[in-house]
């Protein structure tokens, strides 16, 4: 539901990274989105198509890669990945401790982009 402001930021950042004198078009944008974030890939693309009209990013394809959810165990410091569906059974696979801290799996990043 908050795809619109996120997409606005994406457009702003990629345009800042594409100097007009050396880039004529942005073709593809590589994004990383945390598995815990409820962003819909399809809507990000739709909003992007709309917002980028008339800019050098028009018609750019957004390639979204998910960042896995990882936790760190409070007891043994082991870091492990966990699927979203398995969160309710979260426990350290090494020592069985249930008190763990979220390390990654939220937030969104622009990794790189292909330009001509």
């Amino acid at each position: 539901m908050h795809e619109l402001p996120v997409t606005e930021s994406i457009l702003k950042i990629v345009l800042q990274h594409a100097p007009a004198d050396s880039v004529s078009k942005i073709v593809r944008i590589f994004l990383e989105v945390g598995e815990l974030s409820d962003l819909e890939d399809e809507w990000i693309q739709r909003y992007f198509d709309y917002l980028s009209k008339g800019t050098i990013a028009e018609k750019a394809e957004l390639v979204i890669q998910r960042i896995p959810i990882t936790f760190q165990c409070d007891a043994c410091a082991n870091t492990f990945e966990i699927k979203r569906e398995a969160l309710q059974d979260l426990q350290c696979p090494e020592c069985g401790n249930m008190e763990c801290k979220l390390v990654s799996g939220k937030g969104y990043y622009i990794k790189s982009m292909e330009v001509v």
Partner: protein
Amino acid sequence: MEKIRLIEVKEEIQADNKAKAEALRNRLTADKTFLLNLMSSPGAGKTTLILRTIEALRNDLRIGVIEADIDSMVDAEKIARTGITAVQLRTGGFCHLDASMVERGLEGLDLASLDLVIIENVGNLVCPAEFDTGAIKNAMILSVPEGDDKPLKYPLMFTVCDVLLINKTDYLGLSDFDVAVLRKRVLRLNSRITIFEVSAKTGQGIGEWAQWLKKEVDEFRFS
């Protein structure tokens, strides 16, 4: 055909908001004003809980409220009737508050003369979890009629909150909501969260919550 080149961007999309939220926290720390971001689904009882909290703490703390609402003034008017300053932020369809919107809301309050500002965020368990508002602590309400399965559906919200209020406990006997199951589900996601069981309607549990909040505010202001 032109050759395709790769440009490294390596930027966090929310970097702007994060920087604004951090700046806001610094300002609040300088002003010694504790900002609490209260989130929940629509109808979970945010406004009633704020009213109860004001009632419990108004003799001890100078309180202000920022009300976010998609397009109405109903909640801000309810708060204003208590004599507490409430600023209404119309989000105009926006599903959450971010740091710059909160900053705009704070402009309507005299921070130096307030100990505690409560933000009533937009009723929604998804979007507000993603945006740092600049708050010192994040709180959420889950009300009994919503069901004990919400941590499974909206895990992010439960991981970003410092405190969870299970509200409408007066409905417990009428529902299959299992507090023990809920606690277990929440603590697996966030072992650091503090949980209170309250009924904003009857006032049950409000004392413990208010005491906790008062302690947090005092520790923040006098540390």
